[in-house]
């Protein structure tokens, strides 16, 4: 019995290591390709590079206007996430505390339904609308759309969390004469720290990697974010994979720097969202 159990466990651990190698292999291929010359990777896609061609990186950075895209991505992501947190936390608070009223229940239902709305359904009218108000190809327009699209999920997460917070603290703040806005930002908002950090991490990741919204709304070079700029760059450099991979690796650096810090919050955010749903 125990011998059989041990064999089973040994087999399981071996299988997990094998799966881990399969999962990490694409990263390995990306890194070695980025350091090879075209001739070398034509010979073999999986071998280690003979000489490290770091000049791929220098050239890729020059050609892909990486820093402009990085700046656009930073503005797009940071401003969107701040607005998402600011708007949805306060809206969720007022909804969660007034669920006995029909008006607030109505909004709760609307936001819940909007979580399921695919962007494709409103893609054409959004494009037309931003075109008409002259916000097409501006970061401001894309931020507005991204915030509006992200708010429903954030509100849903906040409402679930706020429901579990007792009202006593707010009541006593009210007795001390604090207005509702001050009560929220000084007393309630700090209590939401767990869910706020999860939401910031998730929304940062999703906004940074956004493709759909930027594809439709940011079509000029000056406003392109990293995923979009890479979409174009990869399309142009299919003949030189090494340069394209160097640029891919560079753009992974900010994601994984952030990921290293925020993975814990991303995981807890996903879990909280799933449990509530």
């Amino acid at each position, binding site marked *: 019995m125990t011998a059989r159990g041990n064999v089973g466990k040994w087999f399981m*651990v071996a299988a*997990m290591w094998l*799966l881990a190698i399969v999962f990490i292999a694409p990263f390995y*291929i990306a890194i070695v390709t980025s350091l090879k010359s075209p001739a070398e990777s034509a010979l073999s896609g999986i071998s280690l590079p003979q000489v490290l061609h770091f000049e791929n990186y220098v050239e890729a950075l020059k050609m892909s206007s990486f820093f402009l895209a990085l700046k656009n991505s930073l503005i797009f992501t940071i401003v969107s996430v701040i607005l998402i947190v600011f708007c949805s936390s306060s809206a969720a608070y007022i909804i969660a505390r007034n669920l006995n009223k029909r008006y607030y229940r109505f909004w709760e239902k609307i936001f819940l339904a909007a979580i399921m709305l695919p962007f494709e359904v409103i893609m054409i009218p959004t494009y037309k*609308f931003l075109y008409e108000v002259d916000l097409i190809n501006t970061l401001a327009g894309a931020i507005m759309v991204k915030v509006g699209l992200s708010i429903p999920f954030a509100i849903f997460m906040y409402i679930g969390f706020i429901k579990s917070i007792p009202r006593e603290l707010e009541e006593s703040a009210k007795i001390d004469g604090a207005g*509702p806005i001050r009560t929220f930002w000084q007393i309630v908002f700090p209590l939401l720290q767990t869910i706020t950090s999860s939401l910031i991490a998730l929304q940062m990741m999703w906004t940074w990697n956004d493709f759909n919204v930027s594809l439709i709304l940011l079509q000029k070079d000056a406003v392109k974010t990293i995923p979009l700029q890479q979409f174009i760059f990869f399309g142009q450099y299919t003949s030189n994979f090494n340069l394209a991979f160097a640029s891919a690796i560079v753009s992974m650096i900010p994601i994984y720097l952030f990921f290293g810090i925020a993975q814990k919050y991303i995981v807890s955010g996903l879990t909280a969202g799933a449990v509530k749903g």
Partner: protein
Amino acid sequence: MRINQIKKSLSNSTFLIPTLLFFFFAVMYPFFSGFNIAFTNWDGISPKGEFIGLNNFINIFHDPDIIRPIRISVEYALLNTFFINLVALILALGVTNAYRGRTIHRMIFFMPTALSSVLAIFIWNYIYGEVLPEIFGISNPIASMSTVIPAATLITVWGGCGVAMVIYIAALSSVPTEMYESAKVDGANAMHRLFKITLPLIMASFTINITINFTSSLSSTGLFLVATGGGPAGSSESMGLYIYNNLFIYNRAGYGQALAYLFLLIVVISGVVLSTIFRKREVEM
């Protein structure tokens, strides 16, 4: 009293107004003004189109190309949902065992979720085009009509099963260990324990994962645009990409918007059906 009430509802509005502004301009206005577009022959370029009534909606039924994108999206959504959940469940069951290396495994399986779809697709296109032919001597699977959907699925399974895995891990760790102990005493083997105890108890996470994966894969646009551009020969032009192409390529934005509402109907119906089916099988703990 009255004044107090007005003051209260005013201050309540200050909490809601910023949200409602964004939500109105980014979601509600486009959603409803879309009907205005769907009733016209707008081409996506000129300022506006002419009113043509329900013609776009009627034309959907005469469109010989309409079945293909629906079929492609449904095929991809079924494959993707099945494999993401199968792989994620296997990974979650694996890493919740006690063994050396499980922490690093968890991290490795979750790593691809941080990549943008563009990056994931780019890496895999290279693997399909250069590396697999080199190792296995096969031709590029994403360039062939018969294998393009499975090949695209593999990319999103790799890139997306980390999220489902995390949700399964959370569900698995909430299953009380006493249940396993008593089942062991009763002589249940590992397979029995898995199918009779573990899976029924984590049914709620199946509901959420399967519903979310299926509805979001139905609306996959970027994947096919970036990976294949809809090719070869339209064999991967999904619903979302067909709508996108109607706006930017075929110059039939009005028709595209009518399609968008049909598409929403498909997504909503499948979401409701799936979540009802799985909800029924959930066990209260």
